[in-house]
């Protein structure tokens, strides 16, 4: 990675009664699509607004492109923001909205019109200049907000939950489009979202935040496969937790006794959160376990149980299965491939699983 574009150094924001940011440190590279993911109230929006210059940190430093941002107001930072409400100026036309930031750049009218046209073209709204902005649909408003920010050619584009107001279909379409747009313009994007799926789909790296701190900063794959804590694991997708106990530790191998499943052999890598306690839990994702149907066999380990709940999603079926000896039911997801039967509630089931898919939390 080249020199980071944004450096956050133990950034703190104290609102008197609440500590919104409790020492956040991170480095974000130029051209990266970076997401701040967390539940509401975790400080992700405060962090974004601190980078934008709308909030002054009460401690720590924010550097953009090597320059300390202390005392630099939002209107002179190399950042632009797409607001959650889009903040489209309702009394101005689409063209006036998009060209708003160019007013102070001393451009000729024709040059301005050319740039506005280009920006609208880029977001797929070519020729919309004269439209009244209040007549736009949600998706179009979002595109206008994007064009209005990108026309400023910022070093960093900040997006505050830009897709949360759109319906599901449009949101999924915009996720892909935004990612494409980001690759095309090569600008660093920082996205705030509470939607883990959205963060996984779009980001190069994700910072998961809880209580004003970054709990884990990783690539989507690392975050999903190797969450450092149960809290992160629960926030990103679905994970089954089974009580376990570490019985032996030699070098980078661990022997763990998992309730109901017996002893498994894990590598130190499978315990990304570290820690040294004996009491522990293992986590296993629903899609890493397989329900064996009609005497199917697998090379891995197989445990029997009974089907407690069946939820049919069309492409997938989710089963809650009470494995013999395991205290709580585990969730297993199966793709509905042709010829594969959907089990009934109460049926006996055989479940194949692999210790390599487990994550240990101690």
């Amino acid at each position: 990675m080249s020199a980071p574009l944004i450096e956050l150094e133990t950034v703190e924001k104290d609102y008197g009664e609440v500590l919104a940011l409790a020492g956040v440190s991170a480095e974000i590279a130029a051209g990266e699509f970076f997401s701040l993911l967390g539940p509401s109230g975790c400080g992700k929006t405060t962090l974004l607004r601190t980078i934008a210059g709308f909030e002054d940190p009460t401690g720590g430093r924010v550097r953009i492109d090597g320059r300390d941002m202390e005392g630099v107001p939002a209107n002179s930072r190399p950042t632009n923001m797409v607001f959650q409400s889009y903040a489209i100026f309702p009394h101005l036309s689409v063209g006036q909205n998009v060209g708003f930031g160019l007013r102070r750049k001393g451009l000729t009218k024709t040059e301005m019109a050319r740039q506005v046209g280009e920006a609208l073209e880029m977001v797929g709204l070519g020729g919309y200049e004269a439209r009244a902005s209040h007549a736009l649909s949600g998706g179009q408003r979002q595109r206008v907000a994007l064009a209005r920010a990108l026309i400023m050619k910022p070093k960093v584009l900040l997006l505050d939950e830009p897709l949360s107001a759109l319906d599901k279909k449009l949101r999924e379409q915009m996720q892909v489009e935004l990612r494409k747009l980001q690759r095309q313009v090569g600008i660093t994007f920082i996205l705030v979202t509470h939607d883990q799926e959205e963060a996984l789909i779009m980001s190069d790296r994700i910072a998961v935040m809880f209580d004003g701190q970054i709990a884990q900063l990783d690539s989507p794959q690392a975050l999903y496969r190797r969450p450092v804590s149960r809290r992160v694991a629960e926030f990103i997708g679905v994970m089954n937790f089974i009580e376990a106990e570490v019985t032996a530790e030699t070098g980078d191998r661990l022997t763990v006794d998992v309730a109901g499943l017996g002893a498994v052999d894990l590598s130190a890598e499978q315990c990304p959160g570290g820690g040294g306690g004996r009491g522990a839990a293992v986590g296993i994702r629903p899609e890493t376990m397989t329900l064996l149907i009609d005497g199917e066999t697998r090379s891995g380990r197989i445990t029997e149980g009974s089907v407690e709940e069946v939820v049919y999603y069309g492409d997938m079926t989710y089963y809650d299965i009470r494995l013999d000896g395991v205290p709580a039911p585990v969730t297993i997801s199966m793709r509905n491939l042709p010829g594969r039967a959907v089990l009934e509630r109460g049926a006996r089931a055989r479940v194949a699983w692999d210790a390599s898919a487990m994550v240990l939390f101690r």
Partner: protein
Amino acid sequence: MKRSGWLGIYAVAYLVFLYAPVVLLPLFAFNDATIIAFPLSGFTTEWFAQLATIEALHDSVINSLYIAVSTAILATCFGVFAARASSRYDFPAKRGIMGFIMIPMVLPEIIIAVALLVVLLQLGIALSAWTVILGHVLLCTPFSIAILNSAFLAMDRSLEEAAYDLGETRWSAFRLITLPLVMPGIVSSLLISFTISLDEFIIAFFLTGNEPTLPVYLWSQLRFPQKIPVVMALGTILLAASLILLTTAEYFRRRGVARTGAKDTGGFL
């Protein structure tokens, strides 16, 4: 659902009681008898002609307009400052301070009038149009704040931030974005303050020196029965003027709503 006939009767009676006296005003203004009673005796425009000759009346109208316009502008300016502060920023004792500013809205006017009179006399300030303006601004500012506060709160605060983020200064963001969007509120505030000031009597009565406002002048004329038709004529003109004013204001408000595509929340009419 069957509606009760009584409610209909109540509604009609209510409207008659409310508007019948107002309808009588133009009726008697064109009646050629000095006694205000039915049957009407004949049509005349003499009372209107007389209006044109009374100099004291003209002075009082000019006084009132001067006071009402000054009050409307000052109260609306203060209203903008206070409403923006209270809708955008958190500051210590905000609720207490705002509550204090709003008190004149519910305080009996006579108390404000007497208190102001005592203070002004103690300070040795001569009574004039400006002392009336002072009293009226005190009275109108809470109304102005109430109107403007809702206008500011209805506006997405990200709009101003977005303009600031796009390189504008705080002042130019306010001027280019906030001001046009709260303009209907400002117009409403100007009109309400103007109207309150124009027909306010108690404060004007106490604080006006030897330059009476229109209501004070009218009150002084009611002692002479033969002048009542002239007062009726004057009332008719005022009625027509306020109808035109309100219609214009409503027209501009609706046009503003249509232009920004905002949801019409009803306004004042």
